[in-house]
């Protein structure tokens, strides 16, 4: 793990889980797999704190454990998974667009809690939805359950590995740590639950009374209630599936930009049809015949079969090569088409690189960059000629890009002694290494952004606390009914320049947060591209 990644991970853990968890998480990421004793010794925290933190991390799938042969348990942190915390808002928003508020809340609860049983999720989400509804209406468990089932069917949530059903023989002591197994087929199988009920609305007026009653009731319930029927079956969010979805979105919008709306709809249909059948790292989708595509087109698009075929041909011939024709059958009447996912990712990454060069160095540098991408290797002189840029400026730009590692030099010796005067020096762009370099930079930027945001908040802590207190006073006074004059007096406790300062703070924090989301989108494109090059079929 690079330093930048470790720094970013530690900042994310600290913001979301606190200092103690951050210390332990960072230690594990930095030093790799460790047993409990080592963690306690090296971090200097108390055993209880370490245990608590490990429980939290394991619950959220950030740390895994493994039983070693010698009988002790080792813990390993998943650095990549920690970095995903940055993307949680995007997951939740996607769930909202696909499955409305119910889906959004289900995914949010699962992300906040790491893993949950289905009954627990349904209950919590129903309660939350009921609170937002008008008085008198409640959310039925059945609705929430059906949305959950749909999420499971489309693979957006998956089952966690299970504790094996070991026969409890008294002689054999249970192992110090369970080895969790998961059956591929069962990963999305929803247990048959009969969840009946409605969401409960929490009434604020008699909340205090309820609290005590509930406290006593819960104690009794906790002892008497049987375990729920799906006890032990935990669900987690399937992050890879979300990534697949983002990738598909990227491809569809790229096609829409390049061609037109209809072709993007065709590509979207193709991708949707192969959603569940294609694994996330496959280079190609399943081949589909144009008939199938025709049948699955959304209802609004009544285009004739011939037009569809024309579109498909256009897509297949496009230099972007997103879509490839993998064969003709039926005498050329049916074309079989598949999407080349790896090439698509490469194009997306390349486009990102180009736009970064353009923003950073200017449009002429971008021209040189695109030229080098096209022609692969060029000499100094050739660059000047092809790009039609005067020599001095071309030189300057090339060196700037070279110093920032967007462009590299390739030596080709003419003679075996590599004499410099008799060697060709060619400029070239290596997409993979540039992508890695940029990804590293992105991690650094996000870490800087988070630090800056924390700094800003810390600087204005006193003011923020004051404003929170004033708001609380205002709210309580309004609830008990106060005159406007009094309310105005309270509001004036915050002076005008302080108000201005608060405005500035809010604006800055919003800007920084929005930038973090933005950088995360770039991180996603670059990471997907790099990952697609790593996995060899």
């Amino acid at each position, binding site marked *: 793990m690079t330093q930048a990644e470790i720094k970013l991970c530690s900042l994310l853990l600290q913001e979301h889980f606190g200092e103690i968890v951050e210390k332990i998480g960072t230690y594990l990421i930095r030093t790799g797999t460790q047993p409990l004793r080592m963690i306690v010794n090296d971090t200097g925290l108390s055993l209880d704190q370490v245990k608590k933190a490990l429980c939290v991390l394991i619950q959220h799938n950030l740390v895994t454990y493994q039983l070693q042969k010698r009988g002790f348990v080792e813990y390993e942190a998943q650095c990549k998974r920690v970095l995903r915390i940055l993307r949680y808002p995007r997951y939740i928003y996607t769930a909202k667009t696909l499955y409305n508020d119910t889906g959004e809340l289900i995914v949010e609860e699962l992300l906040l809690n790491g893993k949950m049983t289905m009954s627990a999720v349904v209950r919590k989400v129903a309660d939350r939805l009921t609170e937002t509804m008008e008085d008198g209406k409640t959310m039925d468990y059945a609705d929430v359950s059906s949305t959950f089932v749909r999420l499971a069917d489309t693979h957006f949530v998956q089952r966690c590995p299970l504790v094996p059903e070991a026969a409890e023989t008294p002689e054999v002591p249970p192992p110090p*740590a369970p080895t969790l197994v998961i059956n591929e087929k069962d990963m999305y199988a929803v247990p048959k639950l009969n969840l009946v009920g409605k969401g409960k609305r929490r009434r604020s007026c008699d909340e205090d009374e309820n609290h005590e009653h509930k406290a006593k009731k819960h104690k009794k319930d906790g002892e008497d209630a049987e375990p729920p029927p799906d006890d032990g079956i935990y669900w987690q969010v399937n992050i890879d599936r979300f990534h697949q979805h983002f990738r598909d979105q990227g491809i569809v919008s790229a096609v829409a930009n390049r061609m037109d709306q209809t072709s993007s709809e065709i590509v979207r249909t193709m991708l949707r049809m192969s959603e569940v059948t294609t694994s996330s790292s496959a280079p190609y989708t399943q081949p589909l015949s144009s008939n199938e595509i025709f049948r699955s087109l959304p209802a609004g698009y009544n285009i004739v079969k011939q037009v569809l075929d024309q579109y498909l041909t256009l897509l297949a011939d496009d230099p972007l090569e997103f879509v490839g024709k993998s064969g003709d059958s039926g005498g050329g009447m049916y074309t079989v088409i598949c999407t080349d996912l790896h090439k698509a990712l490469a194009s997306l990454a390349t486009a990102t690189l180009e736009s970064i060069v353009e923003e950073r160095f200017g449009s002429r540098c971008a021209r040189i960059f695109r030229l080098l991408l096209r022609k692969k290797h060029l000499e100094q002189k050739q660059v000047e000629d092809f790009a039609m840029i005067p020599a001095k400026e071309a030189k300057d730009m090339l060196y700037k890009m070279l110093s920032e590692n967007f462009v590299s030099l390739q030596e080709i010796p003419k003679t075996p002694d590599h004499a410099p005067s008799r060697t060709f020096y060619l400029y070239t762009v290596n997409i993979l290494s540039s992508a890695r370099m940029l990804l590293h930079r992105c991690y650094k930027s996000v870490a800087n952004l988070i630090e800056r945001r924390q700094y800003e908040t810390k600087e204005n802590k006193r003011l923020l606390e004051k404003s929170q207190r004033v708001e609380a006073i205002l709210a309580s006074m309004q609830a008990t009914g106060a005159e406007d004059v009094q309310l105005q007096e309270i509001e004036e406790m915050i002076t005008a320049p302080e108000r201005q300062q608060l405005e500035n703070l809010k604006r800055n924090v919003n800007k920084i947060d929005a930038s973090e989301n933005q950088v995360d989108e770039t991180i996603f494109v670059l990471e997907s591209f790099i990952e697609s090059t790593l996995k060899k079929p």
Partner: protein
Amino acid sequence: MAGRGGRGRGRGQMTFNVEAVGIAKGDALPPPTLQPSPLFPPLESRPAPLPGGEELEYMLALKQELRGAMKNLPYFVKPGAPRRDIERYSDKYQVSSPIDSAIDWSPDWRRLPRELRIRVRRLRPGPPHAPPAAALLPKCKQRLALDKEEAIKKLESLEKKEEEVTSEEEEKEEEEEGKEEEEEEYDEEEHEEETDYIMSYFDNGEDFGADSDDNMDEAVY
């Protein structure tokens, strides 16, 4: 040796033909850098403004809400309260801040390694059996087994239960040699004090001098 004499002559002799890379003869090279690059170099081109839009604003709001929500979840582990310099009597009766050895949510212990288990003990209302933390360990186990059955009956009949959380590190180490202890349940309620007194009746004694003397019917000399 021969190269040393060449220092100073000509601009700087390189091992390769400088023209090939594009530095023509007589061109002015930039001056050498004598200090580290500035901390905030001036930007040559301003970055493009952040894209707005409903989607991104919604995600922004989500992000901030998520941050706030996570701070209030039991997963946010706060460090235990720092010990005060002198132990005061009233500490026992005040609401305790997060205790290191307590865990606020109940994970599914079957899925976690045994060594991570934070066990929590309920102190029985009957003091004679209350085990001091460090001593009497093997005997404790048997006593506690008996205690538990009695206590369960007691507790089931009582309406109000008291509990206290203590750390069980030492006991656990002993256990690992011998048989396993029975599992204790940890009640997720607020830490209630181990006292039969109603909290609000407890008087700190700070108001002592300020009490009004209205009811002093005693002799007024």
